[in-house]
């Protein structure tokens, strides 16, 4: 049932039972409660898309628009994505691999995290569906991105947060004039209330009723990696996991590129990275299980990854297995070392999730899962300025001197160069 008015996507499909739904603001299968996913008409896309056509378009994630779920042109976040793929030779040496690249979403436009990708799809689709108010519940990056993108699109926005969230994190949303609502209560109570609000007020809740569209935005990282490597894939990609959605969507992107004829071979292992203090996906994978044991109280500095019951965890494990990849997790100390290693080798300041990715990549190489002769892409998903408190006190102090050349000579130059 392909309709040109809907672009190249045909509707929604249950991931569990395959039942089809129209392309509306809905996200759960009425029959089995499985998650809905966007369904595409790949035969039609294959005829419409080509490497040349993509190359002729502006450098944003929307150059792959046939594979993104909106009907017309993007109306929100037209400049999002196509972040640099940095060849990281110094880091490669440190990790002990032949070739290493950083997919650098710390400089994604406009709020310095990969969330701008998912939000620009969610809000563009929300506008097509006639919504005028958008919302989300978030403790960080997602809130900032919804607030900023909604502001630029002239949409009214609400950001729900746990009442005890640090003020510093709230500021990055408040500045855009969004309505920030703090909710008292335990995490699960807040979670349930948010789902009720989403159902009751007819708002476009980006990660609830718009979730099927929203999640598709993550695929653009996969397309970009391939195109930026000259339509080749690395041997390995390492992806941080919170809900596990990003990893499954990069996997989907890779399989789609084969389906629509953009690539002939799509062999690539997609490894998952979590923080040890909240690693339900990594633990299930290591135990050879499909069942994720919930983490009741996550304890990690990587707060953006601290989801105790990951919605897409099961599917992430399937993707990891299917691509022959593996899973690792990193302690807080290793996360901080990871942030410093990336910053010191490549001049890229990543948030704690980036530290998780680097640290887990290091472990995967050290334990032989990734061979020294292979290539690797690390997905770095957010800027370090967002989680400065996590590394405060770990990077040393400036050395203080008086405004005298003799003091500089003695305390700095001699100490550093005349040892």
């Amino acid at each position, binding site marked *: 049932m392909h309709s040109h008015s809907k672009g190249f996507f045909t509707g929604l499909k249950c991931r*569990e039972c395959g039942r089809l739904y129209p392309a509306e603001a809905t*996200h*759960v299968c009425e*029959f*089995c*409660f*499985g998650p809905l996913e966007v369904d595409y008409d790949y035969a039609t896309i294959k005829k419409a898309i080509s490497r040349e056509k993509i190359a002729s378009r502006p450098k944003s994630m929307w150059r792959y628009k046939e594979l993104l779920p909106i009907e017309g042109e993007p109306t929100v976040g037209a400049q999002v994505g196509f972040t640099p793929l940095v060849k990281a030779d110094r880091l490669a040496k440190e990790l002990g691999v032949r070739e290493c690249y950083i997919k650098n979403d710390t400089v994604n436009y406009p709020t310095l995290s990969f969330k701008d990708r998912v939000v620009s799809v969610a809000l563009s689709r929300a506008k097509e569906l006639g919504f005028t108010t958008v919302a*989300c*519940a*978030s*403790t*960080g*990056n*997602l809130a900032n991105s919804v607030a900023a993108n909604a502001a630029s699109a002239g949409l009214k926005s609400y950001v*729900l947060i*746990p009442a005890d969230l640090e003020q510093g994190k709230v500021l990055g949303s408040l500045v855009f004039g969004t309505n920030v609502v703090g909710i008292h209560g335990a*995490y*699960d109570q*807040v*979670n*349930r209330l*948010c*789902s*009720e609000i*989403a159902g009751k007020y007819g708002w476009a*809740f980006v*990660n*609830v009723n718009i*979730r099927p569209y929203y999640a598709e935005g993550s695929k653009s990282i996969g397309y970009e990696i391939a195109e930026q490597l000259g339509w080749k894939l690395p041997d390995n990609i390492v992806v941080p996991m*919170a*809900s596990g959605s990003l990893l499954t969507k990069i996997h989907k992107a890779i399989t789609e590129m084969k389906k629509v004829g953009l690539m002939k071979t799509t062999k690539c292992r997609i490894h998952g990275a979590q923080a040890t203090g909240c690693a339900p996906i990594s633990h299930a994978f290591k135990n050879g299980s499909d*069942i994720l*044991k*919930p983490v*009741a109280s996550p304890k990690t500095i990587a*707060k*953006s*990854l*601290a*989801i105790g*019951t*990951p*919605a897409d965890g099961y599917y992430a494990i399937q993707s990891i297995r299917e691509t022959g990849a593996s899973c690792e997790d990193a302690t807080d100390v290793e996360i901080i070392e990871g942030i410093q290693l990336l910053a010191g080798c490549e001049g890229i300041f990543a948030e704690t*999730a980036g530290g998780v990715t680097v640290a887990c990549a290091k472990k995967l190489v050290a334990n032989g899962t990734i061979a020294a002769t292979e290539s690797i892409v690390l997905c770095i998903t957010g800027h370090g300025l967002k989680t400065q408190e996590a590394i405060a006190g770990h990077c040393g102090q400036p050395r203080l001197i008086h405004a005298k050349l003799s003091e500089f000579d003695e305390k700095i130059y001699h100490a550093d160069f005349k040892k």
Partner: protein
Amino acid sequence: MKKKETRRFWLTIPSKIVQRPIIWEIGHKFDLVTNIGQASVTTELGIISLSIEGQRSEIKKAIQWLEKMKVKVEPVEINTIEG
């Protein structure tokens, strides 16, 4: 009569009480109708997606009862709060 509503949850049942007929108990302790969407129950853990129909106040009471027994009650849209 107050309006009835239907809400859907994922219940995560800890191993200690995984053998208890919890869904049956909900239907008897509270004026609620339950309907299972999916379930995966092992000796270690029970995960059930459940739709519950009844008055809002009664649904609330059932959630409190479940949480007292350390059952995790999440909306089907788990991860409503993201980073």
